[in-house]
């Protein structure tokens, strides 16, 4: 869990997603929970390590793909709030991204 913020502006709750290469992406919990798999990890009862530290490691997702996935999470929130833009996917990433999406239930 993120530390409760002392500043006047209430900080959003953040989580850390870690790629196969060890690269860390810090994104809002709300965005990360677009993924059903991550949502389950962060919210399931019983103390998963993920729940406690707000950190999830994905040993099978490369940095490039995880970055793209984080972009999708934010895009998805925007889309749901009415800003219906296009989400661009590079052709060379599509299949790998698709497998990751499958795993993440996204």
């Amino acid at each position, binding site marked *: 869990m993120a530390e409760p913020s002392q500043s006047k502006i209430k900080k959003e709750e953040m989580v850390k997603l870690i790629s196969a290469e060890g690269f860390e992406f810090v994104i809002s919990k709300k965005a990360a929970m677009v993924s059903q798999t991550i949502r389950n990890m962060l919210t399931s009862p019983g103390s998963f390590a993920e729940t406690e530290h707000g950190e999830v490691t994905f040993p099978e997702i490369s940095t490039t793909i995880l970055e793209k996935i984080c972009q999708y999470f934010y895009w*998805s929130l925007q889309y749901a709030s009415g800003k219906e833009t296009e989400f661009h996917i590079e052709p060379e990433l599509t299949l790998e*991204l698709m497998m990751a999406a499958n*795993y*993440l239930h996204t």
Partner: protein
Amino acid sequence: MGGACSRKRDQQVDEDSQHNGVSGRYCKSGSSKWLAYSFSRSFSDIKRRTTTPSLMELCIYKVCEDINKYNSFSMLPRDLSQQIFDELVYSRRLNDVNLEAFRDCALQDMNLGECEGFSDFWMDVITSQGSSLLSASFAGPDVTDSGLSRLKDCQSLQTLAFNYCERISDHGLEHIAGFSNLSTLSFRRNNVITAQGMAALSHLINLVKLDLERCPKIHGGLVHLKGLTKLESLNINCCNCITDSDMRPLQGLVNLKALQLSSTKITDYGVTFLRALHKLELLNMECCLVTGACLESLSALRALLYLNLSRCNLTDDGCDKFSKLDTLKVLNLGFNEISDAILVHLKGLIYLESLNLDSCKIHDDGLVNLAGLNQLKFLQLSDTEVGSNGLRHLSGLRNLESLNLSFTVVTDVGLKRLSGLSNLKSLNLDSRQITDAGLGALTSLTGLTHLDLFGARITDSGTNYLKCFKNLRSLEICGGGLTDAGVKNIKDLASLTLLNISQNGHLTDKSLEAISGLTELMSLNVSNSRITSAGLKHLKSLKNLKSLTLEACKVTANDIKKLQSTDLPNLVNFRPE
């Protein structure tokens, strides 16, 4: 990465429900239409996307878009290549070239019914799925006997369909015998299959569902089904060669739950062979040569829920036996020579939820017998002699959801009798005697989603009452009395997906402007009006529009095509065309 086999096989082929609401070349079938007894309007049933596309969906679309860049998907988990394949078929982009990428993908479903350009060459890739393949369907004249024979490597097949495959003959059927796992088989609309070829079916001991609709040469062939005791559903609709003798081999198929025999030559004698089918729930004998005498046999069917006897030339003779069919939920007696006398025998059918008396000789007094049928949800009285007095017998049917009174002699004064039917969702009052006053009597029916006032004489002042029907999804007012001022009262019916205000000759472009906020609209008809091409600009906001009809207006096909290309990508049907 996990999840390789996670996809549940929850999308098994079911011939009529394959793709959500998209009608294709080979999906026309009348066989089950009579069952969809309420709200069967095509447009309102199509679900629209309202959620955010998942990343998975976006990836699948992207793969399909760039499909020519991929040589093989065999390294993907099966459920992913399956989803790509399904999307390609759905978007009609599957062809000789890109099919190759699916070789050895262990696909489970290959439903090619809507694909163009099929040839036996495709069979090579299809059979490469080997024993993974559980379901395959084909359609069209390019499928041959030799193509069928090559499927023999796919021994696990459970579902197989060759609809509209006019080149599949008895010879091809011989190969079917080897598929001992088959539970569903379909050969609709085949003009060459005969009794001889059907001998192969006797080996399919696991068959649960067999569809031979519109196979006109199968007389004598049902004898080969005798041992298929697992059979639960048999469709031989429109096989006009089928006679009473074909019914004899069915008497041992005691697990049959659904039997479709419409437009065959079956008579009362043939029906006697069905008496032992004690699990039969659905029997369709529309347009058969049966009389009231068959009811004696039918009364032995103690599980019967759905019975279709429409267009059978039934008369009142022998119809007293209807009282014995007291398990029925759905009864279709439309287009028969029956009169009020029959209704007294329906009085005890207390489980009835749907009753169709379309075009029967029914009058006000007969309806008293329906007053106790409290479960009724759907009542079809179109083209009967029912008038306002008869409606008092319906006012207690609180569960009614759909009522059709078109082309009856009901007038405005009778309609207040309907005002308490608070569950009513669909009401058809297409009749010249209905006017504004009648509509005014119905304002309590706020749950209405479908209102048909096609021929009713509704004027602008009557349209004020429409404001009460906030849930309307379809509305038709074509009696000629509307002007632009009346259309303004329609503009707040935000749920409308279908609007027909054609035949109102005074409507101008201002009407189009008025309805430009109805963004849910999928179908719009303003034919025979003063609409001009200049008014089309008001339709730009109707992004969901699929059908637009502006016949006999000052609008050309080119005007509409232009609008289609710039603003209305979903438009598929339009007139003038």
